């Protein structure tokens, strides 16, 4: 994946342009802050996420509990950080696997024989035609709730989106002169895909991935909220919300603690993704 970003000039230029785009820059800052906080959650957390303290139930924020506590007296700040780990793990693992699978299938459809392309497109459309949540409920009912189930559901439902983008781009590239020139220079199909198609489609893929993260985080939270995601007592933003939901009249703090990171992740990755799109969009490239 690192190799895909090799055009150093482009990367440097992109960062320079990002600075001129306050929303995009804000998005990047949020993305980085969330990334650091969740990766090093145990360092930043003030309590163990599952440490129960019945004497301190449903506390408002204080010096001891920065975001308050939930109905079992667990520190919400620490739980939010650890919940973020779950959210980030699910989205990163699921999205990178979806992307890898999507690239493989999309290239196969775009560069392979016509019949294979038809078959794969029918497959993508079939999967996409299922409402995600319905599909998720069915799968969970079938094989039981777990983190891996959530990841699997995300992969199955988002592979078609990546594959379609890759397929379209590959089909467009396939007829380009420089691909023919590569063939005339004796490059194999594998070589053409790896060295010439891949760098040309990397940008839209990363934009899609960045925009996809909030959707995946939301899906994970949604499933956990419904009790179909991670199992208690593991902290997840969705389970924090669902635990707090019952006590909304007495203490809104669990809801606020679980909701704010969801909002921030959505805003951060969306702004960042949009900024990326503007940077990579050739029509906007000259202007900015």
């Amino acid at each position: 994946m690192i190799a895909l970003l090799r055009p150093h000039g482009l990367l440097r230029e992109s960062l320079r342009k990002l600075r001129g785009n306050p929303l995009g820059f804000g998005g990047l800052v949020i993305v980085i802050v969330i990334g650091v906080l969740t990766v090093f959650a145990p360092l930043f957390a003030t309590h163990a996420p599952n440490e129960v303290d019945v004497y301190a139930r449903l506390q408002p924020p204080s010096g001891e509990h920065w975001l308050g506590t939930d109905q079992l007296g667990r520190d919400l700040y620490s739980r939010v950080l650890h919940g973020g780990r779950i959210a980030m793990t699910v989205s990163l693992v699921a999205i990178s696997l979806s992307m890898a699978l999507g690239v493989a299938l999309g290239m196969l459809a775009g560069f392979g024989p016509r019949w294979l392309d038809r078959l794969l497109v029918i497959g993508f459309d079939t999967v996409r035609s299922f409402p995600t949540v319905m599909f998720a409920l069915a799968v969970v009912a079938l094989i039981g709730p777990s983190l891996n189930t959530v990841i699997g559901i995300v992969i199955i439902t988002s592979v078609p989106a990546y594959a379609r983008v890759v397929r379209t781009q590959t089909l467009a590239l396939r007829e380009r002169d420089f691909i023919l020139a590569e063939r005339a220079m004796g490059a194999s199909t594998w070589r053409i895909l790896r060295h010439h198609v891949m760098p040309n489609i990397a940008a839209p893929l990363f934009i899609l991935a960045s925009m996809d993260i909030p959707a995946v985080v939301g899906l994970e939270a949604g499933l956990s909220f419904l009790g179909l995601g991670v199992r208690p007592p593991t902290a997840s933003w969705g389970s924090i919300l669902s635990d707090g939901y019952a006590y909304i009249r007495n203490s809104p703090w669990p809801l606020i603690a679980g909701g704010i990171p969801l909002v921030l992740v959505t805003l951060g990755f969306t702004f960042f993704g949009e900024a990326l799109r503007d940077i990579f969009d050739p029509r906007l490239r000259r202007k900015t």
Partner: protein
Amino acid sequence: MSEVVLAVEHLSVGYRTARGTLQALRDVSLEVRSGEIVGLVGESGCGKSTLISSVIRLLAPNTEISAGAVRFRGVDLLTLSEERMRALRGAELAMVFQDPMTSLNPVLSIGRQMADIQFRLPGGTREKRARSLDMLQRVGIADASQRLGHYPHQLSGGMRQRAAIAMALMMKPALLIADEPTTALDATLEVQIIEQLKALQAEIGNAILFISHHLGVIAELCDRVVVMYAGEVVESGPVRQVFDAPRHPYTRMLLACDPASIDERARTLPIIPGILPDLVDLPGGCVFCERCDRAESICITQRPRLEGGADGRAAACHFAGAPR
């Protein structure tokens, strides 16, 4: 006599279409010897592109090779396995395309693309870079080391075409196929590129099959010329002789249409009246007879064969011996 690098022998290629088979090439034969530059001329649709696609064997899926052979140093390319064919492409048999604006990958730097082309050569990044640098300098690119870091859009058209030539010659191929490499460039650049090609050819000693519309360029660069019309070779021979005394009426009319040969200022440029025959449903006689100004009844009924003479010239015309 020098080795025959490329020999196209009685090649017939068609495209399957809804209307029937479009016979793009019929009984085409030509030879390119080592160290020789052969020009291929003909109007659009005469089969030049089909011919070169057949030589490098990158054909559209609906193509049908019905007869003939393409021999590269004696080996028939048409029956070679895809694996061995690929090994030849780029290494022994390289190509320069018409439009340098589209024949380079826009998202990779020139240096990266040039290094990438050397995947068959030994050596690490540094050696590949050194070879790229050397090739860029040889094709006359100033400040070549800086150019290696540039992307195609940062280079001018002429510079891109030079880079493309550098890439094609990187592996020192025995045959370079140049598909109208100067058509997309302006006249001054055209001359420069032609000079450069000539110098490089002398240095590397490769053969060149040069496709062009531009008769002046052919006359300047090539040793021999092959004139094609409607999928057939109508005349071939040493370029000076063919251009000075064409034996086929098509060659003669083509030369008359060359703007460079017109001395007087005219309101309209000369043209060859008529259009190409329908390649799906060919006439029985000579393919050129409908547009020919000296066609006789024999031309309608009987197809002329490409008759070669001892002087290395050949023309597919019933009246080749007595041109007007």
